[in-house]
């Protein structure tokens, strides 16, 4: 089947696909499938909210402090002048927190911490370094915390984690809908695309931790869906506004979203030119709608950020990094570094990974092979503060499965080349979106390493804004096969994904509690 991946593109400017007979039954079917994906994901995330020890999500206590600070701000709570220990400080000391250690296993210490928290209730250290991030995630997470502000920090932390599950549900739903736009003729593949995200341990682990990344993933998934929808059905004002809104949500959450802007701007320009040439003038308005939906509210936020809150705009717009005066030299280093974040150095490149931790012999330099250690092992599952992962006997077969799926997806694309010719711009957009995020992560990583003496920066979670592409690759891999084979492989993949998720639970319980 040569048209496995490609769907016939509708005429530019067409606003809807033809509605065939029995459409309502099919609509009910895909909605049920979407619900199944979301429910499985929410249950998966729910388990993570409980088994992951407090503060063991990446940077979790900084985000918790920031959510609490936002909740106090919403309630206009003011410091009453009473000297009290910080609730968060007591909790961190009581767990006790460490990236490598164990939380307490003593029931008496649990009671002691609770008693101490009762004395310090609702008194925090104020904004944390999470304040560098834009405020949208903290605002959303602070709303339920405000409602339950009478609870102690242990309970409030769980409330924050629970709130993430709604965001995780949105991520899964948008991934499902993205695959639906890409492969409209293969409804079963939408389910596979949604479920591989719902069952992906690292994504669910993040959903079970308090982190801005969760809203970033949802915004990215929404953006992929909005772009795919515009490619398939034409850019209307509403769809343009949808693209702008998805970008806006992401930009008000974390700077990683800037990585998408060049590709999306290019795509929107292509939409506008195509619509203009096709004489669909109404659709040209989609482009300014996208720009307006993004730029106007974001400009308002920048004004509030600098004029009202008195904060530097760099926290929102550059992550605090700046380009040194010798730009050519800087670009040469960044290009070399970006290459080596994935592959070994070649030619005149200076080895960027040679000296890290060389002065601390008990621990080998990490990562020595970033493609394997950071990205593949990380994507299979590295948890805590980027601290523990599956053993090699899991990572190797898992990586082979991922690589095989990638090869199958590439094969499916290759076989559908004829049909995909009309969708070149769309494919190029996704490639550029991925490249933009990769570049942003490596530029930030280079800045981090040069300013912190070589400490490792990159983590697989930084690529989770691209999780819709993962669901698309898996879906493309299975629809590229003969129908029976593709369905059988899908069933096997879903069972393996379930085993993978269960394995991550066992790994985590063993890491902290055995």
């Amino acid at each position: 089947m040569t048209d496995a991946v490609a769907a016939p593109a509708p005429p530019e400017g067409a606003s809807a696909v033809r509605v065939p007979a029995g459409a309502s039954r099919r609509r009910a079917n895909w909605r049920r499938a979407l619900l199944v994906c979301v429910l499985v994901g929410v249950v998966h995330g729910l388990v993570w909210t409980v088994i992951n020890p407090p503060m063991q999500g990446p940077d979790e206590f900084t985000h918790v402090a920031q959510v609490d600070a936002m909740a106090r701000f919403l309630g206009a709570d003011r410091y009453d002048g009473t000297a009290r220990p910080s609730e968060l400080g007591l909790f961190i000391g009581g767990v006790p927190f460490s990236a490598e250690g164990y939380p307490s296993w003593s029931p008496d210490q649990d009671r002691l911490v609770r008693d101490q928290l009762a004395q310090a209730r609702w008194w925090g250290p104020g904004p944390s370094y999470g304040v560098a991030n834009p405020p949208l995630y903290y605002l959303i997470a602070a709303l339920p915390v405000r409602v339950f502000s009478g609870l102690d920090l242990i309970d409030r932390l769980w409330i924050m984690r629970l709130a993430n599950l709604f965001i995780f549900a949105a991520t899964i739903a948008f991934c499902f809908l993205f695959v639906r736009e890409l492969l409209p003729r293969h409804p079963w593949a939408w389910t596979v695309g949604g479920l591989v995200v719902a069952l992906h341990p690292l994504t669910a682990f993040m959903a079970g931790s308090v982190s801005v990344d969760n809203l970033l993933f949802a915004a990215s998934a929404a953006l992929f869906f909005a772009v795919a929808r515009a490619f398939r059905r034409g850019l209307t004002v509403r769809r343009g506004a949808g693209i702008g809104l998805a970008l806006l949500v992401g930009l008000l959450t974390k700077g990683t979203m800037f990585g998408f802007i060049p590709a999306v701007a290019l795509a929107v320009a292509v939409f506008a030119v195509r619509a203009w040439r096709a004489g669909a003038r109404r659709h040209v308005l989609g482009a300014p709608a996208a720009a307006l939906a993004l730029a106007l509210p974001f400009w308002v936020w920048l004004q509030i950020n600098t004029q009202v809150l008195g904060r530097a705009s760099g926290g929102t717009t550059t992550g605090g990094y700046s380009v040194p005066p010798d730009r050519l030299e800087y670009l040469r280093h960044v290009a070399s570094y970006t290459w080596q974040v994935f592959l070994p150095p070649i030619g005149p490149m200076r080895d960027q990974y040679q000296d890290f931790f060389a002065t601390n012999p008990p621990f080998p330099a990490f990562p020595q092979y970033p493609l394997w250690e950071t990205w593949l092992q990380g994507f299979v599952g590295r948890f805590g503060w980027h601290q523990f992962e599956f053993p090699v006997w899991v990572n190797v077969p898992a990586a082979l499965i991922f690589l095989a799926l990638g090869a199958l997806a590439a094969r499916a694309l290759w076989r559908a080349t004829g049909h995909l010719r009309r969708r070149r711009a769309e494919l190029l957009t996704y490639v550029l979106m991925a490249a933009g995020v990769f570049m942003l992560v490596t530029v930030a990583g280079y800045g981090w390493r040069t300013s912190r003496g070589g400490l490792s920066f990159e983590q697989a979670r930084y690529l989770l804004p691209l999780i819709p592409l993962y669901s698309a690759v898996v879906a493309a891999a299975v629809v590229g096969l003969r129908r029976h084979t593709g369905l059988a492989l899908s069933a096997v993949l879903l069972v393996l994904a379930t085993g993978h998720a269960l394995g991550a639970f066992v790994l985590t319980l063993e890491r902290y509690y055995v």
Partner: protein
Amino acid sequence: MTPRIRHFAWGAAAVIAVVTLVVLLAPAPRLAATNTRVIRSVGGVILAPKSERCQGGEYVPAEASRLQVYPGATSGTGPPLVVTVRNGAGRAVTRVRVPGGYPLSRPDRPAPPLSVPLPANRPTVELARLCFRNAGRSAISLAGNLGTANPATPGAVNGPGQRSAEEVRADFFLSGSRSGLSVAGRAVERATLLRPGFIGAWTIWALLALFLGACTAMVTWFVRNAEREA
């Protein structure tokens, strides 16, 4: 005849079940409690000759059969040690004398840790004071619980009742080697601590069962639809 899709799903489920069982049945030494905040300690706590050092906030469960510490020095063998566990009232609950002559780790030659057998039929002591007395004539260092050999990880803290400075790292082990399955109940019990009050072991087991049930239902539903599609 083309195999039905459900056969592939069952096959994959059987492989997962076998692998899970093999992993969970593998025996290994298991911790009963520990105060360590790091995987690999650097530095340590110096114990001068004829001196005693005590540290609070320790959890010494009755089921622990031995205490493991990590002594080191620049030369010689280990001096005699006296290890005492005191309860909240200051009463000595357990006292063990360790004869001298055990090997010590040196920078160029690591030695196995010192295993101190604990008497049976002890009560669990929570928030205990754990004391180490050097009864010998040479100083030793005992590995600490805060300083990490990994510079990439953030700093660690001791819990309430403990000092904020380095403590002697104390790893308490269950007797013998145990399978993961045999300690699963303990692990889940431990995972209920520092969680919202209503969360007990039953909650975690119920959530795990819910997840497994949801996934089983999902796969069954998918396979049924897939067989219809195929």
